[in-house]
């Protein structure tokens, strides 16, 4: 009997350890292109992300087709001509959070942490080091960041005829509210 209760305790402990992960399925990523002729922006509200609080591992996954544009045709061209989302359906980031030990869900606060890792977009991997603002409020964590990203770094080719419409440098805004 004692053995069984011990087993049960151990099992629940094992599961409790697992729970030290922060997750979201409705993370937000926006990009903004500021070119001579027009501004283009698109939003994705179906980004999933996870933080393992035990070892500071971090990942996010953005389905390319979930980027929503003002114009239907822009969205089609984005997927078909630029991102080739049939071949490369996801943008992925995988890395670590430096100083993840600071994240304390038991008290409110905000701190800037450095996320390092590898971003994969359009099948091309790039090393990234990015400052991220982490906020804890009422026991819930959120992460926010804003940075520039070059299309050419990910072999997303913008034809010269489109250079006045689409900027090679995109401003990316990221906001994840973890459950």
């Amino acid at each position, binding site marked *: 009997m004692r*053995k069984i209760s011990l087993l049960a305790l151990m*099992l629940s402990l*094992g599961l409790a350890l697992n729970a030290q992960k922060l997750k979201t399925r409705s993370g937000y990523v926006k990009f903004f292109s500021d070119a001579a002729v027009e501004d283009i922006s698109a939003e994705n509200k179906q980004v999933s992300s996870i933080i393992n609080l035990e070892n500071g591992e971090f990942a*996010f*996954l953005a389905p390319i087709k979930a980027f929503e544009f003002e*114009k*239907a045709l822009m969205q089609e061209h984005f997927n*078909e*001509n630029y991102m080739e989302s049939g071949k490369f359906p996801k943008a992925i980031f995988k890395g670590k959070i430096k100083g993840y030990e600071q994240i304390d869900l038991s008290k409110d606060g905000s701190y800037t942490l450095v996320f390092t890792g590898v971003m994969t977009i359009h099948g091309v991997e790039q090393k990234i080091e990015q400052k991220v603002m982490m906020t804890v409020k009422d026991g819930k964590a959120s992460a926010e960041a804003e940075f520039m990203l070059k299309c050419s770094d990910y072999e997303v080719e913008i034809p010269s*005829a489109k250079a006045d419409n689409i900027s090679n440098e995109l401003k990316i805004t990221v906001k994840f509210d973890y459950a």
Partner: protein
Amino acid sequence: MLKRYLVALALLPSLLIAQDDLLSELEGDAGQETDYAFATWKGTKVVNLQTNELPGAGVLQYTILHRFGSFSEDFMYNFLGLNNAQVRLTLDYSPTEWLNLGLGHTGFQKTYDGFVKYRLLRQSKGAINMPVSVTGFSSAYYSALRYDEQDFERNLGRRMSYVHELIIARKFNQNFSAQVVPTVIHTNLSQTFEDANTQIAIGLAARYKITAMHAITVEWVPILNGNSYIDPEAADGFSPYNNALSIGMDIETGGHVFQLFITNARGVAEPYAFTQTPGSWLEGDLHFGFNISRVFTMTH
């Protein structure tokens, strides 16, 4: 000893999951979603056939279609056929993602038309598996042509013709798409008593993308019960109409799609292109032509 096993056993679930990749955990959470095929074609037409594509919801589309004079018909004198252009204009709007309504005018036979195009099935994989996209298209044409010698009354009914297409399309991969288009063409007033009023065609079309913005297209519309036209050179005074065959290139430039092609079909509107094409590829009765579309997003 047993206790140690138990401890190890108890910690196993956490270890298993912790060692698992974070990414695969995210993907596992995502579950299976339906992935719909898109951009099977660059435009809403191949050349004369419709594609399964509709302009997006809230999009107004304007198209200009030209077919120039034949290569076999004093080509240089007619400035490469440009002096003899057949023109068609259309304007259509998609109130929703699955419905498109439009109006058109064609110079030949002074034809006015109204059309409706609607999505029935969308090619997809994942949670819902569907091998093809299916779109319906129906159009009614009114010829406003004046007749000097009225041998009988040209009332509304006698001026009408209709085309129905069922477009069954598949995007095989990023570059290659093809479609089969069972088509019914009905003309209330046939040219002769022997002619069929209702004709059936099985349209076939394919495209291959050579770059992100360029594609080669080919389209063939064999009629199963073709009619004949009056041909003074033929032994019995009649020659059968030919099937429309077109080879072209799509060029996409943001809001425009330019489609440049060579075709033996001179009539721009569907009933004329499919059932009234005297020209033959073998005899060099070819026409240069283009379709240009421009889209405007009306809603925000």
